[in-house]
């Protein structure tokens, strides 16, 4: 009985792994073939005309090095401030009792449930005239539209992050903090010196997820931050970028099937950094969620 199940399990695991890896294998296969292979029905996986020209062209179209630099700056900057602001908030909710706590925590839950699309239009007008009366400035296309919400724990998916922090802080024994209070530490110092070192894996998990969310985001950045060249945005607009930069005209008529080679190459280029990160830090992605008992 055990052997039979082991056999079936092997088949199921292999099959599902194939389904998951399929687009990635396809991506690699497409990125290294000439566009004429796309319309050749005999070519499925192994390119008939292997080439690295497509990758080179895509690097050019995406303006990759500059784009990568922009993406990394925004990404890491926002993630760092977001991690700390969310951690402070999570700690407040995990350890202190105050009036209105239930209602306030309800707002955190709302932040998880309400999709950004609902509030993006008023947010646009907010950033368009940020401030009061004549002291208002136009923040659209400024990096502040990304940093300000991140700084105040209201960035991309920060509700989820506050929740993860709250759960993992609750798992830290209270005695540690009591000891530090008796020694005369202020709550903030206790947080910095006792909590942060003890919850370092939660910090790493949230940081990694934050990097991933900002990396993949194009909705927020395409709403408030249109001029910047970040990877998510470039990829979103890859159709027009391709036509503009590669064929020098918008009116060019390229078979959509043939365009796939550049698109897939763009995908490959943009997820490679994430994949490398994932390979080395996979443990923190998965264990962080498992141990935080996110819903418990």
């Amino acid at each position, binding site marked *: 009985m055990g052997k039979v199940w082991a056999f079936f399990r092997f088949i199921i695991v292999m099959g599902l792994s194939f389904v998951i890896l399929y687009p990635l294998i396809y991506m690699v296969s497409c990125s290294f073939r000439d566009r004429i292979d796309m319309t050749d029905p005999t070519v499925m996986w192994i390119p008939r005309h292997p080439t690295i020209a497509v990758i080179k062209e895509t690097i050019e179209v995406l303006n990759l090095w500059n784009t990568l630099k922009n993406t990394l700056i925004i990404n890491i900057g926002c993630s760092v401030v977001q991690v700390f602001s969310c951690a402070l908030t999570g700690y407040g909710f995990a350890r202190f009792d105050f009036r209105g706590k239930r209602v306030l925590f309800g707002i955190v839950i709302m*932040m998880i*449930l309400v999709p950004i699309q609902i509030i993006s239009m008023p947010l646009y007008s907010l950033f368009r005239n940020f401030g009061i009366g004549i002291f208002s400035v136009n923040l659209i296309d400024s990096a502040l539209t990304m940093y300000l919400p991140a700084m105040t724990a209201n960035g991309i998916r920060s509700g989820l992050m506050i929740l993860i922090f709250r759960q993992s802080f609750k798992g830290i024994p209270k005695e540690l903090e009591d000891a530090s209070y008796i020694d005369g530490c202020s709550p903030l110092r206790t947080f910095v010196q006792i909590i942060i070192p003890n919850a370092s894996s939660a910090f790493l998990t949230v940081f990694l997820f934050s990097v991933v969310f900002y990396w993949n985001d194009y*909705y927020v950045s395409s709403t408030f931050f249109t001029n910047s060249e970040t990877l998510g945005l470039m990829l979103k607009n890859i159709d027009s970028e391709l036509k503009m930069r590669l064929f020098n005209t918008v009116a060019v008529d390229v078979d959509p099937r043939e365009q796939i080679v550049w698109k897939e190459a763009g995908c490959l280029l943009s997820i490679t950094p994430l994949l490398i990160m994932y390979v080395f830090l996979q443990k923190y992605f998965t264990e962080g969620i498992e141990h935080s008992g996110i819903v418990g």
Partner: protein
Amino acid sequence: MKKIPYRKKKELYGYSFISIWFVGAVIFFLIPLVKSFLWSFNDVTIETGGADTSWVGLKNYVYSINTDEKYTLLLKDTLLETLWKTPLILVFSMFTAVILNQKFRGRTVARAIFFLPVIIATGAVYEIISGDLGRTGNISAGQFSTLFSTNSTGRLLQFLGIYGTSDRFNEIISATADNIFSIVWSGGIQTLIFLGALQNIPKSARESALLDGATGWVFFWKITLPYISPFILANLIFTVTDAFTSPINKVMRRIYSMRDDFRFGEGSAMAWIYFGIILVSVGIITSLFRKFTDEERKNG
């Protein structure tokens, strides 16, 4: 100097820890949320001095439902899709979690592969790969793998002798086979949450069940399922909201294009209709679920 009582002091510390978030939440979340709701009843134009609004009552809602040629259609499609896909994603992710929780060779690699969608499926990449795969006919037309195409699934069912037992059943099986890609790719986080729940099942429960001679099947229904049932609800809510914010959600794309046309009033109304339906259905499911689990508990 009057001393502040300890309780009061702790309360103040609590407020100061959440104060940064609270200020942000008011500016970047609560006010925009209320505004968006109000805008759905207004004609909105963006001027240099701010948003210019004029009250039009339910006009935007009527427009979205009656006049807009795409919205209702997309809404119906998307809601139906969420309706049948969500249970499939839940069952699938529970199944995967149970498998990944067993000990076998190569488990680490299998886990790494199964959670890969978590880091990719929120972005533009996902949109491109699902679009491209569709365009080359790889998803539904059966080039993907002969097993996944509808016909061979039918044949497989026939072979197993369960084809034609009920039309509805056949439809469900075929739909699953056709959409295996999107189901597998939407289940990453859910699998992770179920896996965490499975690992919290105490060893003693397993041991006593084994001692009583429970088979794996009985063990799943009597021990595993009750333990992870609270997580089913959490995952359900997660799946629904995830489908809502997915980059390939067509209703959201419609709203997105309204925003690009600066038609904020109509866009807000469309977003709120969708959000309202989702919120009400999640609410109903949650209360039904609570009632059900409470009764279970009472019956022991």
